[in-house]
């Protein structure tokens, strides 16, 4: 028994030493950012001027129009990309599962292909395609989401595939069909609600990826948040570092909050509730 507790103690000590060391490694550059943004003029004293400027929306949009433009573009892209991704993937993956299981390897291959095609390579290949996109529908930044959908495919596919694996799509669909539901109803009111968690995590991954995307936007000379930040870095270092820090903290908070939401919705509790209610129904 004492060996067990000694082992526990050693393990805890190891954990705290490792985690503290790496936390210091992760935290120092971020603190460096914070420190840099609060430096007074000439590196002396402390001032919150940078953050005060950033918190004042009207000043930001007046003095840093590029930042405002990039931010709005990123928000727009963060809305459009997950939507297109879901519209494209959910029906296809469900349909393949129901009717064309032979195609599942092909779909998987296509979805995982972007992992072997780096974004920078995709830019090279997409240049002629985007010449057509601009020609046909105009050159709005929002059209970048067409390329972003490709970037998020592997991550979204994995999340949705895990979700589809966990439910019995065929039985659910057949039950709904035998009760007279059309395919639209089956998708919207039977499959989607059951995929809630998977859809949510796929969308969040896409949003995170879109907000952090730089390569494609920069090489197509479009302004999203990251590109605006990069360009601002040349003229006003403090504000750009502050924006970078704010973006990182925001991303962390979203992921941290998600880790609570996701586990509660996906945990075993829901499944056991489902089982219990099924047992109760015949009685």
């Amino acid at each position, binding site marked *: 028994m004492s060996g067990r507790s000694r082992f526990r103690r050693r393990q805890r000590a190891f954990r705290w030493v490792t985690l503290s060391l790496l936390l210091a490694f992760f935290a120092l550059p971020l603190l*460096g950012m914070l420190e840099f943004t609060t430096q007074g003029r000439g590196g002396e004293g402390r001032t919150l001027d940078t953050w005060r400027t950033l918190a004042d929306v009207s000043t930001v949009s007046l003095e840093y129009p590029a930042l405002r433009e990039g931010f709005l573009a990123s928000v727009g892209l963060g809305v459009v990309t997950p939507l297109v991704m879901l519209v494209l993937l959910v029906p296809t993956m469900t349909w393949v599962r129901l009717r064309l299981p032979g195609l599942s390897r092909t779909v998987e291959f296509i979805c995982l292909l972007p992992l072997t095609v780096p974004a*920078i390579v995709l830019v090279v290949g997409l240049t002629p395609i985007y010449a057509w996109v601009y020609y046909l529908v105009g050159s709005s930044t929002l059209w970048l989401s067409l390329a972003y959908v490709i970037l998020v495919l592997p991550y979204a596919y994995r999340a949705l595939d895990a979700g589809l694996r966990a439910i019995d799509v065929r039985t659910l669909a057949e039950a709904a069909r035998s009760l007279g539901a059309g395919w639209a109803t089956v998708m919207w009111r039977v499959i989607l609600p059951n995929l809630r968690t998977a859809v949510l995590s796929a969308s969040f991954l896409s949003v995170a990826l879109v907000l952090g995307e730089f390569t494609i936007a920069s090489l197509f000379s479009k302004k999203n948040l990251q590109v605006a930040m990069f360009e601002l870095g040349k003229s006003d270092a403090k504000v750009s570092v502050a924006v970078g820090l704010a973006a990182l903290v925001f991303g962390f908070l979203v992921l941290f909050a998600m880790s609570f939401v996701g586990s509660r919705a996906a945990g075993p509790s829901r499944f056991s509730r489902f089982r219990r209610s099924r047992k109760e129904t015949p009685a």
Partner: protein
Amino acid sequence: MPFFAYTTVFLLIPTLVVVIGAFLDGDNRPTLGNVEGLTQPSVVRGLTQSLILSAVTSVGGAVIGGVLAYAVSTAREGSVTRRFFSSLCGVLAQFGGVALAFAFIASFSAQGLLSVLLGRVGLVTGGGLWLYEWDKGLMLVYLYFQIPLMLIVFLPAVEGLRPQWREATETLGGTTWTYWRRVAAPILFPSFVGATLLLFTNAFSAYSTAKALVPQANPLLPLQIGGALSSEVILGQENLGKAMALAMVVVVALVMTLYAWIDKRASRWMTR
């Protein structure tokens, strides 16, 4: 189906454009000139430096990140420690790019926090110029997103280690060393190699961090491709870009094939 139409237009055709374009000259005649262009000293240097940078940061990141993943896995499931580290690593691994480069530039600027701190213990950072060299600063910054990525990729594998296995080893008279040497290491090894390969492709295809850190120089292959794309001065440069892109795809595809093979072996132990 719309899915196939979409992926054809935005994924398959671009890939073909790169593959075919690598073998076409400025007038769309077939040529091997672009591929021969890959032997230019600057391109070779970019490719080698990219490979070295990716190899070093993936192995370093995998080892440090692996230890971190194990340390995190000993915390209770659902504990704040675990959530905190997974979220932090998620942000640093996937969100970063430009912001991470800024973090290091700010910290190592003349009055920056880390320069001051290191200066106090007697380490002179020399104005932070080393930060912009590919085999010093870039490696440090790359590690800064490789270690977190390792945690994300490797955590499920170490979570798959069951306490019963350790107990069984102890019952049979094995020490902690026996457990690690004979049980845990063989089980984790395929996942570890797989994760390292994933880290390699991640570093190899990264563009934004390097671009933000060294906007002018082109020490790495992705930066050179970006440079070839945005410079319209030299004719035929665009198709050299395609040849470089093809070289990247070949490297990444090789690594990913190896990864897929190893992943199949690793997943044998991952049914939880």
